[in-house]
């Protein structure tokens, strides 16, 4: 028996790394072990607490033990964590994880735009996110690779889009993803297309009408249940029935609002109708702070931030902060350059407000988490860094990714911290998550290990030789480009040139070798600056090329034998 086990362990080790990414889909083959131990790692059991050298043991989906004197069990797949950091898995407070946008195949104008079918009106509170889940949807893996393990997923379209569900960001089948169903009613100021209600004021009116109708239906049903004699028979209405848990206070309303105005509207209508409100996808709410404090309504801050144009910083710098040229009493068309500078400086201040939004909420003691709603997955980590750079501490940012959303979603007994007994949702990194250089190495969802290969093949410890003459080839949709590049080592400092057709010989600038990664840039009048970055193996080099004037290209080079 022991022998058999060792054999299977060996075969596992022999598997290429990629095959470990996903559990095999063939139901006949199970993972060799459901037990993992991350040893001697820096563990952040909860925001603000650090175990410098601790071991985390995961067994059958749960965290079995966490501590500095915990030994790895004999049957554990051991991850040596000496250079690793372990966080609790992140929680997305509101988004569309695992739910593809419904394609509208119906471009017909509603026959009666003033009284459209309820689906066209956006009145589908009975639509259950659980029925829309797809574990193969790209968002599941994309979010997981960022460290998210659990998400509150809601349907896409309509003012009352449907019921949200809390899901694990892993699972072979939709059912396997569901942690809790019908967890919320999702509302948004999403007007119907060419039909009633098309505007936010129409949506406000329809919300009032729906709630009154649902209340009346409940009254009618109760009367009828008591004694049907002489009463109108209550009719089934899927929209109103779906609103019942909300009206009984059993289900919160997650209202997506982008900013202050929609925020006020959602707070007003929820107060008026007695709804249990949570605001989600909030991008900027500084003018709403007092109302949020007074109402106790929690917020899920959007991980979508406005882009900061390059020109901004120079404009603000040249004005020196607060000394904006105001009250100039000159005709705008005569000094339009000054006006552009002044307006851009205010735009830059506005962007600051968005970056500081989480900090503002934190300082006002408004409970908040983060929402991926409307955020581009590729921007999320960079945006979290911008939020931290704007002043939110890493601990507070971590709380907004773990403990706070766990508590706000009512899941803090099983999620949010790294402690024995909790669900084994973990993020394993090689440094602080909020450091740009840090890579995420593993994500555990429900005890299942996923290896993140963001920088596959990179080895910081590798020692490679790059000097010599390389023949390169750049494949493009036009004519392939070939040539040579030469790198020499002048006593510890690298330098080099590249020969490009029609351009001549160019110097390799910013030439840098880090581990097995070689990067440099080349500038010419013909195509501006192009940056090259890629990994070196024995005699090959493959680099990504990026530049303002070129499409993304790949350079493949082979070293000539000495």
């Amino acid at each position, binding site marked *: 028996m022991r022998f058999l086990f060792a054999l299977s362990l060996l075969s596992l080790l022999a598997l290429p790394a990629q095959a470990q990414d996903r559990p095999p889909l063939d139901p006949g083959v199970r993972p060799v072990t459901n037990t993992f131990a991350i040893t001697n790692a820096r563990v952040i059991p909860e925001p603000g607490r650090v175990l410098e050298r601790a071991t985390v043991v995961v067994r059958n989906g749960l965290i079995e033990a966490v501590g500095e004197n915990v030994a790895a069990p004999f049957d554990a797949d051991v991850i040596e964590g000496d250079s690793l950091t372990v966080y609790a898995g992140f929680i997305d407070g509101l988004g569309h994880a695992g739910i593809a946008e419904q394609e509208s195949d119906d471009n017909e104008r509603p026959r009666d735009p*003033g009284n459209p079918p309820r689906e066209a009106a956006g009145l589908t509170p009975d639509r259950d996110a659980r029925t829309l889940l797809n574990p193969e949807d790209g968002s599941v893996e994309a979010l997981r690779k960022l460290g998210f393990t659990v998400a509150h997923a809601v349907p896409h379209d309509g003012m009352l889009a449907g019921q949200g569900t809390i899901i694990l960001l892993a699972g072979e089948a939709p059912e396997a993803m569901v942690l809790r169903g019908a967890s919320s009613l999702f509302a948004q100021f999403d007007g119907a297309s060419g039909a009633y209600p098309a505007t*936010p004021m129409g949506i406000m009116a329809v919300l009032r009408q729906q709630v009154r109708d649902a209340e009346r239906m409940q009254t009618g049903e109760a009367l009828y249940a008591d004694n049907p004699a002489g009463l109108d028979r209550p009719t089934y209405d899927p929209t109103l029935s779906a609103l019942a848990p909300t009206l009984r206070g059993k289900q919160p309303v997650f209202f997506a609002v982008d900013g202050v105005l929609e925020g006020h509207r959602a707070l007003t209508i929820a107060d008026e109708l007695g709804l249990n409100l949570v605001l989600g996808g909030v991008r900027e709410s500084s003018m709403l702070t007092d109302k949020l404090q007074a109402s106790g309504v929690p917020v899920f801050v959007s991980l979508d931030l406005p882009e900061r144009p390059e020109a901004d910083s120079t404009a603000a710098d040249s004005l020196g902060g607060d000394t904006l040229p105001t009250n100039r009493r000159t005709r705008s068309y005569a000094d339009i*350059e000054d006006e552009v500078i002044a*307006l851009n400086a205010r*735009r830059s201040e506005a962007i600051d407000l968005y970056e500081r939004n989480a900090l503002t909420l934190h300082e006002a003691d408004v409970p908040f988490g983060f929402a991926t709603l409307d955020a581009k997955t590729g921007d999320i980590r960079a945006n979290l860094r911008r939020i931290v750079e704007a002043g939110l501490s890493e601990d507070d940012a971590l709380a907004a990714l773990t403990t706070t959303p766990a508590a706000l979603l009512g899941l803090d007994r099983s999620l949010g911290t790294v402690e024995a007994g909790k669900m084994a949702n973990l993020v394993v990194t090689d440094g602080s998550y909020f450091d740009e250089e840090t890579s995420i190495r593993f994500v555990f969802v429900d005890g299942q290990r996923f290896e993140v290969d963001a920088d596959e093949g990179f080895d910081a410890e590798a020692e490679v030789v790059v000097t010599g003459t390389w023949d390169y080839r750049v494949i493009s949709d036009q004519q392939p480009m070939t040539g040579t590049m030469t790198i020499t080592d002048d006593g510890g400092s690298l330098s080099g040139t590249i020969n490009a057709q029609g351009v001549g010989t160019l110097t390799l600038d910013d030439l840098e070798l880090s581990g097995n990664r070689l990067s440099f840039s080349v500038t010419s009048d013909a195509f501006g600056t192009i940056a090259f970055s890629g990994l070196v193996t024995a005699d090959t080099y493959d680099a990504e090329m990026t530049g303002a004037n070129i499409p993304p290209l790949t350079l493949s080079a082979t070293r000539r034998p000495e």
Partner: protein
Amino acid sequence: MRYLFLLFLFAPAALAQPTGDLLIRGATVLTVTNGTLDNADVLVRDGKIAEIGEGLDAPRGVRTVDGSGRYLMPGIVDAHSHIGISSVNEATNPITAEVWTGDVLNPLDIRLYRALAGGVTSSHAMHGSANVIGGQNETLKHRWGLTDPEAWRFEGAPRTIKFALGENPTRVHGRGRGIRPASRMGVEMIVRDAFTEARRYRERQNEYEAARDEGRRMTPPPYDLRLETLADILDGEILVHTHSYRSDEILMLMEILEDFGVDRVTFQHVNEGFKIAPELAAFGAGASIFSDWYAYKFEVYYSTAYNAAILTRNGVRTSINSDSAELIRHLYHEAAKAQKYGGLSDDEALALITINPAWQLGIDDRVGSIEVGKDADLVLFDEHPLSVYAIPQLTVVDGIVRFDRAQDADDMRVFVDPEQIVDEATLNEHHRGHSHDESCLQDVATQDAWWLQ
């Protein structure tokens, strides 16, 4: 100045709106209702006009403004505008009485500040004119700097609703969608049917309540916010403001209102009002007009700049409105035109933009004239406001200075869109002229484009 706004931003949301104290000394005071007072002082305490007289002393700590050589008039009231709201037309149905612009106030709209710079202290943020019975409107006080929409409501102002007759609703619904109303006759039937249905609705509710009070078991009748609103009109709880141009359709609506016992109505635009001024006066209807804006479509060809004078002289409570974010900045010029065409007196001309629109909105007990006890909503001009040289210097709402020309920086926005691209090209475009996206039919195109293509 920027820091002042920051203070406003973080001021706690109070139930009562902030008020101020002020003494304006030695101005020529145009009271509108009690003639002109030369070299008079106006003392404001807690946002109300406390005293008007000569030689008044400022209580300790009260700011004094030198009004000598200047003209003080009541804050201008605009009975028809569409600024300060995020949506204007719920243009998807001929009747949308249940929607309300008060649900979508936007106190961050820079056009509100510009209106203040034109001396306008209150405006009537109206639903558009796409529907025969559009939405309910909101009367605003221009408390620029307060960012909570609740702080912008003219507290205590009566509810009002927008109706629309003629080409706009027949174009949007009749020609645009092939449904009723396609003609002025259709418009009439929409209103009559709506009122009839609302009356039945209210009767059903009353029956149910009576039955319930007698202890009889009965399922509650359907609740319908649209009919509920219409029934409130019949109960006299909502003032009707109707977009209208032609005399025939105006007479038609007065007949309907008489049939259903609705007695408070203000006709908006009412370009042919001069033809039926005695009838309007006999009904007790208000008229809210443009000074000299017409001929922009067929139904407004038969118009005259003498409309204000003719209506006024026939005893119709008349106002001049803007219906535009640009006109709202110089309504005092618009009033002056009524003096040029028709020779109204100063007080008659100023009443067109103060006490008369205030009456039409049901707020004339609060604003519209300079009288002790009224709200201290005031504008100080350098010249007589009916002069073409007049420029507002100071605009006061509830005793608080909300516009001060001396403190008027280039960029007074309280909200800046971080995604709005700023470059010379867009600025040049902006400076070339204001856009005309602020009309009565705002939002309709986006709702229509979907199937009109």
